[in-house]
């Protein structure tokens, strides 16, 4: 912070830190969640887009930055349409062997080729329907860029036996950030692939250490207690590794994200995140799922408590896009239908 201030001050501007804050509570979200689940079951799933919107609205509205909350503006009908399209194409894929056995691979390739398009579409829908201070976010990318980020580089990662995998992760993050905008202000990604390599290098070291530890414990425990000791060590190791990567990649992504002159920051501690993941999983298991809402609220609060926006100058100068330049950011996609892609 001090360093930030001095750096910024030396350039003749003042840098302020605006912390993100999550105000949602487990009590409120439990009510929303349980009613969502009930209505989804009673309507045999038709309500689920409305449930998704209500959940999205709750989490956006509970997130506050600089005195204003975010809003989620998605139309459930658009989500329903998108789900029907996905369901329809998968159904078509399953039924093609009836027409001709050669058609299915062709359709499979066509569906795989649609994946980058679907991801872009999903990201623009989400961005377009998220707003802060009545100004919408936006996302738009060309097919080739999405193809490189989601098929090209991951494939290269597999073909090089993982050597290029950290680079592929870096490119995906870069793709998401570089093609996003808040109103007319573009986001830009300033992180480097070297930083991503360091994260995966640490992961590799950690995994090797875990294996060595487990092997030593098995050897020391003998046949009786060895397996139990190994299992008892593996679970924390797994959550630890998972949380380490999740925390570090999230931090790297936000730390490297610039919004015009401003900069995002995320300093989620890996150990704290590991604890949250592990205790959440345990709580959900022991409560037969009834603590799912509590665990989501807890995770959101933890993550956002470590996030902030370093602003250079006023936050009031962001401008909304005007009719004309909307299409360049793919916002026309945002209205028609959504395709759910878990990212």
């Amino acid at each position, binding site marked *: 912070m001090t360093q930030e201030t001095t750096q910024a001050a030396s350039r003749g501007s003042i840098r302020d830190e605006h912390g993100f804050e999550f*105000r*949602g*509570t487990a009590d*409120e*979200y*439990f*009510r*929303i969640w*349980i*009613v*969502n*689940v*009930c*209505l*989804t*079951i*009673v309507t045999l*799933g038709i309500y*689920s887009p409305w*449930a*998704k919107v*209500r*959940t999205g*609205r*709750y989490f956006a*509205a*509970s997130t506050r930055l600089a*005195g*204003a*909350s975010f*809003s989620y503006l998605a139309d459930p009908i658009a989500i329903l349409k998108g789900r029907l399209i996905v369901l329809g194409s998968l159904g078509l894929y399953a039924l093609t*062997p*009836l027409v001709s056995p050669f058609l299915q691979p062709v359709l499979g390739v066509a569906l795989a080729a649609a994946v980058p398009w679907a991801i872009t579409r999903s990201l623009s829908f989400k961005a377009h329907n998220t707003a*802060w*201070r*009545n*100004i919408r976010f936006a996302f738009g990318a060309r097919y080739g860029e999405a193809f490189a980020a989601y098929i090209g580089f991951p494939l290269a990662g597999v073909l090089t036996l993982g050597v290029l995998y950290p680079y592929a992760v870096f490119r995906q993050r870069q793709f998401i950030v570089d093609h996003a905008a808040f*109103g007319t202000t573009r986001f830009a990604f300033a992180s480097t692939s070297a930083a991503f390599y360091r994260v995966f290098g640490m992961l590799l070291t950690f995994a090797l250490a875990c294996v060595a530890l487990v092997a030593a414990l098995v050897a020391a425990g003998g046949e009786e207690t060895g397996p139990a000791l190994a299992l008892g060590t593996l679970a924390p190791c797994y959550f630890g590794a*998972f949380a380490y990567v999740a925390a570090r990649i999230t931090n790297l992504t936000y730390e490297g994200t610039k919004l015009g002159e401003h900069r995002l920051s995320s300093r989620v501690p890996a150990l704290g995140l590991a604890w949250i*993941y592990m205790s*959440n*999983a345990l709580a*959900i*298991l022991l409560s*037969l*799922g*009834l603590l*799912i809402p509590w*665990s989501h609220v807890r995770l959101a609060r933890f993550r956002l408590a470590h996030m902030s926006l370093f602003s250079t100058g006023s*936050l*009031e*100068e*962001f*401008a*909304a896009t005007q009719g004309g330049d909307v299409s360049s950011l793919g916002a026309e996609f945002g209205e028609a239908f959504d395709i759910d892609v*878990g990212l």
Partner: protein
Amino acid sequence: MQEIEGRLYDGTTARSRDARLRVYSDGSVRLRAESQERALTISDLEVSARLGNTARRIGLPGGSEFETLDNDAVDAVLEAHAQTGRNWVHRLESRLGLVLASSFLVLAAGATFVLWGVPALAREAAFAVPQELSAHIASGTLEVLDRTLDASELSAQRQAELKAHFREIAAAAPRGYDFELVFRAGGGLGANAFALPSGSVLMTDELVGLAERDEEIVAVLAHEVGHVVHRHGLRHAIQSSMLAMAILLVTGDLSSTSSFVAALPTALAESKFSREFEGEADDHAVAYLRESGISPMHFAALLQRLAEERGEAEGIVTFLSTHPSTDERIERLEEQARLR
């Protein structure tokens, strides 16, 4: 006159201004932000539905937006002007009794749907699918299995004897299936037998070797034919995908924690389903054995031996691990033998 404090966002920039909304009983509205004042009517306001205690948004003509945390004031205004109709979801959410009742409803509905609804729907669906299609879906299975299994070492004569038994069993079963019996060296599968949806039944040499009498093999074959005519292969596939879909819909995503947590109930439901399938196939076998004058005790004897072998060798996975406990099945068979 009712008053709501909040902030005004113009919709063209991220500028934030303190604002106050005054609503009069005749439906006229005055919006004051800094020194500017704007006259509106209640029907101009597009009030977002209430969601817990999160900030409420009121859309105004021209694209600007009024944001307030004073939910109660907004609700009071809506109530005074008889515009509360669309808040029914929030009313559901705000009654603790209702929330608890719905929790029970969810748990009960979820369990009922998974334990009875899914199998019933899968049965309907499986029998609605033409048999040719169902056979086609699994058409590659035998080829895949043959990549790991070696050819049978049974003599041609022994194979012919057993195939003759199988033809009799198949003749007693409903029409429409291409029944066929094939033998393979079990390898890692050990003593085992399974059925494909098309009507092909695969039996390993080890199982033939384990049987002390042909009646025991007839019982196993009748059991496998039971799997075919009850369309267990297709029903299993449908049930599993329905279960996955239901869990996806309810938990809303496939994030790491929820998929981790969904694994346990899924495993429990799957094991209940496979027990039911084994029960149905056993019943089919017993019915056939009765008609042919064979005691179900022969089936019980083979199961007993299989269980003993399992105690020694770990190789048998598919046949036994998904089956109900052998003791339970043997008990049922003995009971049915007594009933004769």
